């Protein structure tokens, strides 16, 4: 048996490396798909919330829309107002005992984290939509675009760019908080660590390794996200075609310079 801390770390890695790796895979799977599905849920919810209830509308459609708005409000309140660890217990054991559904644990984990994330995403995406000024909606309607066309071609592209940092933050939160799903015995990283640690009573050593893995995941993800944000902003420069006969007559405008000018103006 090893005698030093690093000896133990090496030993445990050798013994349980595969287990940790599969746990890491499961954690990533749950976090990524939970964020993706949560995003879709949030998007749907946010779009429904932007539909207003006009006076001219038929009574049945009106009632349906109002019901949808009320349901959404309840959903968001419940899932933001209770801990995910409790939601996991209620959904997993509730559906088993009262609906007779014995869910696959991985499916259950993804479901829970998606619904939970959806409630947060709905608010984030609504914020993104609100951040696109109302005038652009009106301009789109004024040239005859439908609500759906306006949303998909004008509003959402800008809204999503604006909220990308918050969406990335949700992913990072999910990587970490998926650990609470060990309560339904899904084989994610924390669950694997618990079973590995128990064998030799080496809790500190095992969880030291696990901490390093979580950290590596979150740091990598935030780096990747920052790269994606930069890419989405497009080139910093644009070209003014000075003259159509002489393509050399170009002026390149640099956005950083512009932003610097803006800052100077704002600080006055």
């Amino acid at each position, binding site marked *: 048996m090893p005698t030093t801390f690093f000896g133990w770390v090496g030993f445990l890695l050798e013994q349980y490396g595969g287990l940790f790796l599969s746990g890491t895979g499961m954690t990533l799977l749950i976090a990524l798909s939970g964020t993706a599905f949560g995003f879709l849920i949030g998007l749907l919810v946010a779009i429904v919330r932007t539909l207003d209830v*006009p*006076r*001219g509308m038929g009574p049945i459609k009106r009632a349906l829309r109002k019901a949808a708005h009320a349901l959404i409000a309840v959903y968001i309140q419940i899932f933001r107002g209770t801990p995910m660890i409790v939601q996991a217990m209620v959904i997993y054991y509730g559906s088993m005992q009262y609906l007779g559904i014995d869910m696959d644990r991985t499916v259950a984990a993804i479901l829970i984290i998606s619904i939970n994330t959806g409630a947060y995403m709905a608010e984030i995406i609504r914020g993104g939509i609100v951040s*696109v*000024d109302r*005038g*652009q909606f*009106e*301009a*789109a*309607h*004024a*040239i*005859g*675009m*439908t609500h759906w*066309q306006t949303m998909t*071609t*004008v509003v959402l*592209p*800008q809204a999503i*760019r604006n909220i990308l940092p918050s969406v990335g933050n949700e992913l990072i939160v999910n990587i970490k908080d998926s650990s609470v799903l060990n309560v339904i015995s899904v084989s994610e990283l924390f669950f694997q660590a618990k079973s590995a640690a128990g064998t030799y009573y080496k809790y500190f050593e095992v969880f030291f390794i696990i901490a390093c893995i979580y950290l590596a995941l979150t740091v990598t993800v935030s780096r990747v996200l920052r790269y994606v944000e930069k890419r989405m902003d*497009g080139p910093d420069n*644009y*070209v*003014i*075609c*000075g003259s*159509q006969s002489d393509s050399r007559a170009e002026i390149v*405008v640099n*956005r950083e310079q*512009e932003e610097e000018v803006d800052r100077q103006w704002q600080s006055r």
Partner: protein
Amino acid sequence: MAEQVIRVEGLKKSFGDHQVLRGIDFAANKGEVVCIIGSSGSGKSTLLRCINLLETPDEGKILYHGRDILTDERISMPQYHAKVGMVFQQFNLFGNMTALENCMTGQMKVLRRSRAQSMENAMKYLRKVGMEAYVGAKPRQLSGGQKQRVAIARALSMDPEVILFDEPTSALDPEMVGEVLSVMQNLAQEGLTMLVVTHEMGFARAVADHVVFMDQGVIAEEGAPDDVLGAPRHERLRSFLRSML
């Protein structure tokens, strides 16, 4: 008699218990430039927004070539919107699109034109407003005057019959007002029907065929520019014109 493109009859609109439009009647003939003047809060924007159906009128009719757009089933809303363009005070360009894309989207989505056809048409109008050099620029990279010219090109790209302008130069720095007004003057000379809410009295005098003075939700005075601006009959119009000097 010239053909009436837009005719408004007995138009009323309230926000809550504040009645903003209290019965408006007027018409714009084909090829005419109608300038709408009046102090802030008199309901000028609300009138244009009702004609454009950005607001739903409470009462009255809006006739497009004699057909009531609020009730006539033969008029499809996207088609109507394509025929009646709008230019806003705050430009309202699509921030995620280049100048060219701003002028193409509506053509492709609403008029179902091909990409090539939309681009050709967009370029034609960007050239007309003198913005062909900036086709690849995003709105945030343009000055106010340039944005407004792109916004005009965007409206023109739908090949509308009428364009409504809501104070198109009020958000501009003074040195940029001229470039936008001269674009509008060219359009007027080419025979586009235009409804222009403006505080530019020089423009109204030089370009308008008809001037409408709105006051507290009604049309208080209207007529030829020389009459309305040169020989105002109502005291409220006289004091409004004095305040514009």
